């Protein structure tokens, strides 16, 4: 199941990249299609943030993960690089759990 998912993602992501370089631009330049494709990553990434931080199976739970996200938010405001943002989130959550 996992391997099927990995190969499906690999093939699909490659074809999406190739399509961009191959399809005549007018096909995908329809303003509505273009806007939706542009907004998809924003909506999905925001949804992934919410699920990662607040969902625990089928329940919502406020715990150390939210503090980790808050710390990541501050790090981003301070223009920290990606790896630092991720580390700050992890260390904050791990630290709180030690208390």
């Amino acid at each position, binding site marked *: 199941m996992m391997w099927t998912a990995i190969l499906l993602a690999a093939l699909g992501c490659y074809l999406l990249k190739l399509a961009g370089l191959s399809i005549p631009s007018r096909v995908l330049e329809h303003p509505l299609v273009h806007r939706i494709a542009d907004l998809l990553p924003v909506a999905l990434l925001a949804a992934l943030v919410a699920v990662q931080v607040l969902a625990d199976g089928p329940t919502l739970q406020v715990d150390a993960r939210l503090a980790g996200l808050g710390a990541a938010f501050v790090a981003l405001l301070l223009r920290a690089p990606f790896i630092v943002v991720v*580390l700050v989130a992890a260390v904050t959550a791990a630290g709180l759990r030690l208390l």
Partner: protein
Amino acid sequence: MTASPDPVLPPGERSAIVRDGVAVGIATGAYGISFGAISVAAGLDVWQTCALSLLVFTGASQFALVGVVAAGGSPLSGAVTGLLLGTRNTLYGIRLAPLLGWRGWRRGAAAHLLIDESTAMAVTRETTAAARVGFLATGLAVFVLWNLATLGGALAGEALGDPRTYGLDAAVGGAFLALLWPRLKDRRNQLTAVLAAALVLTLVPVAPAGVPVLAAAVVALVVGVVSHATDPTEVPGRDDLPGGGEHQR
């Protein structure tokens, strides 16, 4: 791949572009470590983790797949979420195709390297020669270092044991926020993000794991239909990249 038909690029400019590309590759590779560790923490093995970086090779989609699995979703719903995130590479390709001007097998090979970083380092160039050098140098540097870093991160993650002890579950949320961050400069994107988060949290208690995230795509659909503004943050700029802003002209 490196044989460029137009020899107009001065050697000095060429090596400056290559240097910038390698700098971006090193900075991006560093976050491949976190992908490797997070993927193993989500329950994938080292081989599966490395296969994702080698074959999928687009960071947000890889994080999405392992993120959905970590949250208890099925691998297939993770893959579909990853595919939906991969659609932005299609937009990058449309923007870059006339500039890069590759055909046949070269285009087929270049497609695998079409990611945020290679796009940002190519899209602002004024000539095809400069765009190709920026695209290839960045794409290849990121590919090599991203994959090495993934392997290192996966091996380290396996050695660490329980991911919660080290806050790796919180790291995933931080990673997604960092990926989203450059797009949040735009007001409509902020609204989209808030609506998507609200919808997904409403659905978590009632829908099977993996489904709420996919449902957030509906928000993109609705906002896209309702609003008509263009998005200035659509294609990443060099400023948005780690290590990319240092040699700006």
